[in-house]
């Protein structure tokens, strides 16, 4: 009889424990930094922007596909390039188009001494930790015929997807980076402007010239009047 109650008690405790566990079976996501950037470039120059993407909270790999929109048709290169990658899953082999895949990695206290290419450790903004991130590099070529003073915007989008198994609605997640590029002159110059001087100094040359002309005309008139009586 005691054994029966003991077994029932253990079962009850286990049931309560299982019921109170979160039912979040699967999770998919990622993070990004920075979210906006600004650059000044001269015609013919290349603008290189690095974007850090990380996965701290998912329970699985997040597959990232990068895309962009822009108000101008300048040449943009994305590194790493999008390519088809095949993965072996319990359900079979699946091929996905991706630029990179982010493994779930927790933040670390110290940066490793050797950091592989394409990896970065970004400072955690709220803790004394570093977030392991993968970098995406955008290279934007400013054409040589770009006009000085032009401003163009680029919106880069990272779409993250995970292999979540079967379901009626499969969601994906998207984060973005806004980049603004100003086309500037190749040379720095600083010209003194006189717009702040009072009008009589701004137009001093005209006033002096006019005064001299008046004096000259008056002198001529006087001269003529003196000549007439003779």
């Amino acid at each position: 009889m005691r054994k029966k109650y003991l077994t029932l008690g253990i079962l009850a405790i286990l049931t309560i424990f299982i019921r109170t566990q979160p039912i979040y079976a699967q999770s998919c996501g990622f993070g990004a930094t920075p979210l906006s950037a600004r650059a000044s470039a001269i015609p013919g120059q290349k603008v290189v922007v690095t974007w850090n993407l990380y996965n701290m909270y998912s329970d699985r790999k997040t597959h990232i596909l990068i895309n962009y929109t822009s108000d101008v048709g300048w040449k943009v290169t994305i590194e790493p390039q999008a390519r088809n990658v095949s993965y072996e899953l319990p359900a079979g082999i699946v091929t996905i188009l991706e630029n990179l895949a982010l493994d779930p990695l927790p933040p670390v206290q110290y940066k490793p001494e050797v950091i592989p290419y394409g990896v970065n450790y970004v400072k955690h903004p709220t803790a004394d930790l570093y977030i392991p991130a993968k970098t995406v590099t955008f290279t934007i070529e400013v054409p040589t015929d770009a006009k000085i003073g032009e401003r163009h915007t680029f919106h880069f989008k990272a779409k993250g997807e995970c292999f979540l198994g079967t379901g009626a609605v499969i969601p994906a997640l998207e984060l973005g980076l806004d980049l603004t590029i100003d086309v500037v002159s190749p040379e720095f110059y600083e010209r003194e402007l006189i717009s702040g001087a009072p009008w009589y100094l701004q137009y001093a040359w005209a006033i002096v010239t006019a005064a001299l002309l008046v004096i000259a005309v008056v002198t001529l008139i006087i001269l003529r009047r003196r000549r007439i009586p003779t």
Partner: protein
Amino acid sequence: MKGGKEIYFSLFVFLLALTFAIFREPFTAGIVRITGLTQWSSVAEATVTVLEYISATLFNVPIQFGDLNPGTSGQLAINNPMQIQIGGETNVPYNITLEGTSNFVSGSYTFSISNLEFNTTTTQWTQYELNVEKDAYTNLPPPGGTPVNQSVWHRISVPAGQVAGTYVGNLMVRVKKA
């Protein structure tokens, strides 16, 4: 030669006027420099850029409805709500939008994504539209170190007479700096 001096004087004055007209720029600049009357503003500025971070993780996904009969209306997802967890390191205010990116497809059979609805308030349901971004949450404050969950409930209606099959639809969750 009467009045010769006056003629020379007039010529001299004319030449002087001409000289001023030709060399007006250095002359004016000289005045400005001497009097110091250009507009100057001197403000000491220190600027610093704080890097922006944003992260989001979807929980309770994919969205499941189980087996439904054709003609079923307003059936809630069995794993409601979908949780969008905003990482504690996010340091910008943000918006969350949702967009249906495909209709429900099973082989060659389909039905519209507009049969799927979401809500964030438990009172007002919003229909998905194909490739149309809909606001779920707007201008939420940064989490400030602790992750926060934003919930989204889903329900579906299956058109009457829909051909049997396992239908799958896709949606996009966008988390953007507000």
